[in-house]
């Protein structure tokens, strides 16, 4: 099963008892720092702003906040800093660079300078590029993967070993969209304003008219 299939299987199962941890188990996530003087750790400030705008193109503000309003770019910076291995990080950042080049070629301006219509056109081009580009699965030696963090793993010889770490290098649009959606719908505004979330439901009703329930449950 490739990763796209895995994702669609998970999407189908969403809402069941499996939903939250299973999805997050595949996709990962990270705490979004909310300090007002936030500085990205891996992204440049320009890249962070570009990603904020691209995320907001995927989930724009409507009568509820958009992805650009809830710190999705901060979440992305955390993920690429603390969760991705080098191969994934490089692959994603080169995607940001290509999007910027495309903006210049197509509209003669940086991503930050585009109108929302132009950003939507750019996004459509990223979709088409992604459709044409198959995902790459890369096997990563665990020690090498985490070498940047120090403390290489020492596991006693002969004991059951950690599994080989496999990472998938998705086309830029798909990875961007996934990070945007996870960051948005697990944020407080995304979960509680756009969708709905109750920490203590208190009861289970298995057959309630949708119009009485209202919107999709965030979890």
């Amino acid at each position, binding site marked *: 099963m490739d990763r796209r299939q895995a994702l669609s299987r998970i999407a189908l199962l969403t*809402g069941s008892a499996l939903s939250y941890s299973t999805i997050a188990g595949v996709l990962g996530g990270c705490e979004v720092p909310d300090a007002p003087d936030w500085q990205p750790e891996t992204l440049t400030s320009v890249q962070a702003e570009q990603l904020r705008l691209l995320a907001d193109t995927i989930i724009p503000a409507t009568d509820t906040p958009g992805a650009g309003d809830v710190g999705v770019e901060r979440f992305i910076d955390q993920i690429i800093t603390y969760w991705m291995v080098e191969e994934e990080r490089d692959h994603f950042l080169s995607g940001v660079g290509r999007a910027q080049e495309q903006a210049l070629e197509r509209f003669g301006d940086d991503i930050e300078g585009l109108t929302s219509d132009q950003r939507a056109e750019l996004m459509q081009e990223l979709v088409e590029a992604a459709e044409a580009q198959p995902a790459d699965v890369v096997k990563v030696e665990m020690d090498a993967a985490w070498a940047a963090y120090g403390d290489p793993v020492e596991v*006693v010889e002969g004991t059951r070993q950690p599994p080989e770490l496999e990472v998938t290098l998705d086309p830029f649009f798909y990875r961007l969209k996934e990070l945007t959606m996870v960051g948005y719908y697990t944020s407080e505004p995304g979960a509680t304003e756009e969708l709905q979330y109750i920490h203590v439901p208190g009861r289970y009703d298995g057959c309630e008219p949708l119009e009485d329930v209202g919107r999709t449950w965030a979890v």
Partner: protein
Amino acid sequence: MSSSPSINQGPNTYDAIVVGSGISGGIAAKELTQKGLKTLVLERGRNVEHSVDYITEEHRPWDEPFRGQTDRRKMQEEQYVQSQAGPVNESNAHFFINDRDNPYTLGEDSDFLWIRGHQVGGRSLTWGRQCYRLSDLDFEANAREGVEIDWPIRYEDIAPWYDYMEEYVGISGQAEGIPHLPDGKFLPPMAMNCVEQDFRESIEQNFDNRTMTIGRTAMLTQTHNGRGACQYRNLCSRGCSYGAYYSSQVGGLRDARETGNMTLRPNSIVYEVIFDSDTGRARGVRVIDRETEEELEFHADVIFLCASALGSTQILLNSTSNDFPDGLANSSGALGHYVMDHPFKAGAFAEMPGYEDQYYHGRRANGIYIPRFRNVNGDQQDGFLRGYGYQGGASRAGWARGIGNDSFGVDFKESLREPGPWSMFLLGFGEMLPRYENYVELDPEVTDRWGLPVLRFHTSLSDNEQNMRQDMADSAAEMLEAAGGRNVTPFVDDYAVGEGIHEMGTARMGADPNESVLNEYNQAHDVPNLFVTDGACMTSAGCQNPSITYMALTARAVDYAVEQMNNGGL
């Protein structure tokens, strides 16, 4: 009982010692202390206080540092085995062990996932909570088919103890009158959703011999024994301050503590049961204090091993003497052999058209159950003996269905405000046959950080389990098709023995001391004051989630042991 003189006098001397504080140990502690025995409960892991130590219970999705998945690097470094099993996630990873401190080795062509929770309460904090009785279909299976040895008990021996334990634990469920999945003492059942209700009807209309019921689960649908009802948060494995699911914290240990007869000692790694050659009895246990690394000895009149199937087996294998060079109570040579689990990760799912105007409220941490229909009631399979049950359920797709497609923008966002299509998911849990070739032994070379020999696993699946798993996928797909499912997708995913986290069978019960470790009361044939009442005792596996059986056998064994002690027969 406590009034009778103990042969073991001294400050480290008790009437009874219980090793382990999980599902079985909690019940042993409760039963022994309520019968008046001064009982020492030894737990190798840290203490976990009810509610106080449920540190992630109140986290919202946006509070989780990695939004549900633990730090991938930390998993790879410290929990590279634990994280391969489904139940482990960011919010409960602290209730699973560090794999680097607790290694084990594999024999040739073997794999095993050993998922452990070293803390007070053990895996009762994180268990799946499903509770199903075994029946004589299970207890007679080995004898009927000529597989290995017969169980020394039948359903009628354990039935009153199921009653007793179910009333104590609080099991919600629906009575169905199925002889091979006996009804129990149930609290009101949880509800099925609309799709599940119709799916049940479809199964009953289209298939003889098959039905579906709501999961029978150790989750309270009303207040019970001083514990609160389920709030439908589906956060169980973080620990539940309502006490709505059964754990040792809100059950056995709580009630043992109330008697004033329990001494609970966390951080106490039992590595040996001391055998007294003169009396032919166990005298006590040897312990390494996990924090101080001090070596200690504790004595008692009776010892209950409830350290999990493989934990108890490891202690016995490590308890060697002139009388028992191959491990205590192992004159039969059966100790460590016949490892079983419940093979799963095979089944099917499908989209269920319709019901667009229906949804649900609350997160029900329970699903449906389709009782075994293979090799029972006239069904006969060529490819495998025994059978399997399905767990699963129906739900509507949420926002994640938008990942992986090409849509974006305002319309896309709006479309996810409504839930997506319904789907139905069926996952088989099968019976694994006991085989001598599936065994654990002490590794001759590798030791853990306390210098204790680690277990070496020789475990693999036989054709019986492989064929059964294929049938799990085929039959699930067949039922989904019959119910009008779309895009029916059968699957048989990779599964390693142990991944079901129902490991069992390594100190089996039997009538003949030459072929089994334990008798019909979980008492060691070779050592009369030694009992093993966790999953190690299982002579065959059934396909039912086993915890309620361990609880019932534990209570029954304590009753027998104390009666024998009072009659001077131990």
